[in-house]
């Protein structure tokens, strides 16, 4: 199916192709207040169903870890499911489902979150458990040692026992970036996890798990007044913590100091893998919009440029993807490709480079851009249908754009991107001097050594 015949088919059908008729998205209304101790609360009332999502973000992630303590923010997340003054270890994980709800907690480089989705009449239960966690955590040598083993097992299972994970998640990410806070992976190293102590946990808790470093976003069938009353009751007496020093200024992007290249042996991989990454600016940079759509044009759907060229036409790749790792500090624009048998990684690299050059020279068509915008808008809007997804979105705009109200303005910026913008960001960031190439090759069993699965240094 060629590109032109798709256009022709679309016209023949008389289908809406442009965004002339695009409706404006109804704004997400919200209120906010801040307690004297610095706890910020954002409330979105949605009375359509008696459900509530409570989502607490602490503005701390692996970027804030001390040298020699990589993996600690995630380890700490586990501790928040342990004993508190009034809860036994793991009790939260039984109480929430018994009330008809669900829960989880996640950690990344920039933040740690803990959330529940519950029947609206159990808002009090959720907030009570968060009060326990923010003010009454009980850390001791035993529960710390136990959770450290659980986290180490998680690392073994999801990194050391999964192909490419160590190479991509640990080596590549830290190689693309020069920003100090991102020089280690969120999962951390075994040595650092082993070195952590219960005292570290207490210090981390006192520094970061304080009301002035937390934001609670609540969405659902609740009123602001009712939320305020419960929040004041449960959190009002928790003392404010120390003020935190800001992270260092982001390093400039794109890098101009030349290509970086590494080959990694992976004992678990069965197929070689090509990974190519370009350093891009922090998420709140104006170029993010065009970069996001550019990635979509490269690889979203079967008619995307890379899929058509590498998988369908050349039959060189089993799979090819591109995406943005966009965050608080400098991020990356990534390409991954798996070769078909007999295809050298060098050929995949050349093909991707050729497609990048072509795009930089010739730009993209209006229709390609429109498709990317449609896909992006559709994903954004369909992802706003649940109270939980709305809490995540409000948090995202507060944390990464500095203002939750951006939730109602941001989509317009994507829609304003032009084909010139797409070409401009491709030319600016997808340069050789800003490129990092990693090839992952299956480790030969013949060598049969106990060598670490990565040969690159500096990862841990």
């Amino acid at each position, binding site marked *: *199916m060629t590109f032109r015949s*798709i256009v022709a*088919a*679309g016209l023949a*059908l008389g*289908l*809406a*192709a442009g965004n002339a008729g695009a*409706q404006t998205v109804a704004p997400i209304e919200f209120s906010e207040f801040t307690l004297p101790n610095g706890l910020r609360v954002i409330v979105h009332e*949605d009375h*359509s*169903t*008696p459900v509530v999502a409570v989502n607490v973000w602490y503005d701390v992630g692996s970027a804030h870890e001390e040298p020699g303590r990589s993996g600690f923010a995630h380890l700490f*997340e*586990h501790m928040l*499911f342990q004993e508190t003054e*009034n809860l*036994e270890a*793991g009790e939260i*994980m*039984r*109480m929430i*489902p*018994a009330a*008809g*709800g669900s829960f989880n*907690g*996640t950690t990344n480089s*920039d933040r740690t979150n803990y959330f529940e989705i519950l029947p609206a*009449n159990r808002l*009090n*239960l959720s907030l*009570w*458990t968060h009060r326990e966690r923010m003010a009454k955590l009980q850390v001791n040598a035993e529960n710390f040692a136990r959770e450290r083993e659980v*986290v180490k*097992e*998680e690392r073994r299972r999801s990194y050391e026992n999964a192909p490419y994970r160590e190479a991509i*998640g640990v080596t590549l990410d830290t190689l693309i970036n020069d920003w100090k806070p991102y020089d280690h992976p969120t999962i951390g190293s075994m040595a650092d996890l082993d070195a952590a102590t219960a005292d570290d946990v207490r210090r981390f808790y006192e520094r970061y798990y304080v009301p002035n470093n937390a934001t609670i976003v609540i969405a659902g069938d609740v009123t602001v007044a009712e939320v305020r009353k419960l929040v004041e009751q449960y959190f009002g007496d928790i003392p404010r913590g120390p003020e935190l020093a800001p992270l260092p200024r982001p390093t400039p992007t794109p890098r101009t100091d030349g290509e970086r290249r590494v080959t990694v042996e992976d004992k*678990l*991989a*069965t*197929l070689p893998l090509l990974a190519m990454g370009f350093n891009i600016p922090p998420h709140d940079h104006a170029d993010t919009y065009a970069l996001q759509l550019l990635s979509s044009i490269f690889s979203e*759907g079967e008619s995307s440029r890379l899929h058509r060229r590498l998988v369908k036409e050349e039959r060189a790749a*089993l799979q090819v993807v591109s*995406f*943005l*790792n966009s*965050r608080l500090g400098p*991020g990356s624009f990534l390409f991954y490709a798996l070769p078909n*048998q007999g295809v050298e990684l060098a050929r995949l690299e050349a093909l991707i480079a050729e497609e990048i050059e072509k795009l930089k020279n010739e730009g993209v068509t209006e229709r390609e851009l429109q498709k990317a915008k*449609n896909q992006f808008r*559709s*994903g954004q*809007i369909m992802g706003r*249908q649940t109270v939980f997804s709305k809490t*995540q*979105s409000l948090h*995202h705009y507060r944390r990464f754009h500095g203002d939750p109200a951006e939730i109602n303005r941001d989509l317009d910026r994507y829609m304003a991107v032009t084909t010139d913008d797409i070409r401009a960001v491709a030319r600016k960031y997808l340069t050789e001097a800003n490129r990092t190439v990693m090839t992952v090759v*299956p480790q030969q*069993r013949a060598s049969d050594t106990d060598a670490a699965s990565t040969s690159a240094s500096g990862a841990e």
Partner: protein
Amino acid sequence: MTRTRIAIRTATLAALGLAAGSAPAWTQEARQKEAPPAPAPMRPVEFPEFHERTLENGAKVIIVENHEQPVVSLELRIASGAKYDPVGKAGVASLTASLLDKGTATRTADQIAETIDFVGGSLSASASDDAISVGASVLTEFLDTALVLVSDVVRNPTFPEDELETERRRTLSALQANLGQPQYLAERQFLREVYGEHPYGAMPSPESVRAITRDDLVGFHRTHFKPGNALFVVAGDVRPDDIVRRLERHFGGWTGAAPAKASLPAPQPRSAREIVFVHKPGAVQAVIRIGHLLPPATHPDWIALDVAQQILGGGTTGWFFQVLRQEKGYTYGAYADFAQRLEPGYFQAWAEVRNEVADSALAEFFRLIAKLRDGDVPAADLETAKDFMTGSFPLRIETPQQVARQIAGARQLGLPNDYVATYRDKVAAITAADVRRAAQAHIHPDRAVVVVVGDATQILDKVEKFGPTRLLDADGNALARSDLEVKASEVALDGSSIQPATRVYDVVFQGNPVASATTTVTREQIEGVDAVRSVTEVSGMGTTRQEIAFEAATFRPLFSKVEQQMGPATVSIDLRVEGGKVVGKIALPGAEPRDVSLDVVQGLLLPGMDEYAIMVADLAPGASLTLPSVNGQTGALGNLTIEVVGESTVTVGAGEFEVYELELTGGATPMKLYVTKAAPHVVVKQEIAGQPVSIELKEQG
């Protein structure tokens, strides 16, 4: 929903959760601790309003209007599903649904995919027992695109032959993989036993899927895809009058009444308990399914039955889980399903348990069911069940699409309009007496069928204590007790004609070669006999090396070894014949290595020898051959059955070949082989059930 694509590490909830004791800690004796706050009063669930309309062509429309987001979900349900599959052709409804978007009178499959992709939407179709559903989700501004596509695929599908063949291959491959799964065998046998001749009891089989022709799909479509048989379910950013106008426009020319209701054979309840044992050689678990018919969904006792289901076997708080897993440790999980259907539904208690405790597990199941019938339901258990059901209910109707699906689902079951809206209140009103009455009226363990899939040589004696027992093989055919013994082969195989050779195979994944396998056959003296030795090495995708040897003239096995490293998984099989016994070790990923020690019977094959047995066997259309063999996964003795199921021409890298199609069952993995018609019968192509992988002959010399 953040746009940042940052790897997220989730807490290892399972690992942490396992530390949990059997009773919720906060219900234990009072501590000097602050208790969590009591629930605030339950909010009334104001079930969203919905509208019902009828199009001029007779199609019904249910509309859930919700303008919160500019999104529309559109679903068209045809009130005919797999229960109308022609006899012997189970799978027609499902293939009809799968092929709807694979070509219409004016659009190719690619065009349809492109069109929906361009607007960032989704389009899908599927079949259940009672209905076929075609769904699309789009932003409101692209509503007409969705309507154009849904209208086209529903009204003008062409069911292209090549797309049918692609889909048939995919279905057969998935089915064949299923046939190796004891859980699937149990489910299939359970439905057969419960429903008898009623079509709810017929699942697609390789034979029924092979028997389906394009005409069957065309016929099913022509008969059932009529507006008089259709229900539109529209949810989201639409106004009822407007969407009705659009539906009239896009579906105006579509006419026809619902087909006459076919009379289906009524399923017959059992009068006494019966055990149906499906023998799966080498199984290390017993898969248990206990149950019987329940009344249709419209029976007034169903709310009480739902509560009974939650008490007995709902999630981790149900009695089955609490006793069979938490207290006894027989299993990873034990649950109950009470299935609601338009026609009779069913009750099912289920678990997979360790062989040694098959009898204890059955006893516990029956004890707990009796406890429910006797009305011995503690108030706390009733409350826990009802709290969960009423508490989680609002989470299930959060989006307009979820609401619409609940309404349409109830409608499909013949339930009244207010069924979903009043469900939570009705659950809250159920008493212990209601549960007991419903259990006594509808749950009959003494008239249940008990399907057990397992190794009869290990557990048949444990299971048959529970009632009269019928023994079946994995295909559902009667099996005599004497068939359980592995007998010496009556076929004398002679491998003297096997010549030294080298064959290179491509390993093809989703149509693309991803690795290469080379088999080298030699004739040499091993252990003082003239032997055939075969070494196969796979490269490009992990590393695999298989080496086997057997005496040429007699096929007497000498050894069989496999070493494989595939991703994190390591496989090691090392078997040899010593002093009339097969001895050695099998080490598979995630399991303790097993020691093997078996008596050699006449004609016994070790893993890998099947290829050579086939090479020299007498093959003809319809021929079937059963050989004793050692299962390379379990190390158990079993009967490997090789059946010639067809003839065709296959083109692979090495050329075009006239082949017999063979199915191998009873071995470690069910598979399909294509071998040259001409002897020696060389493997041209191999398909492993359920995997998008085939192995194809590239060159030979």
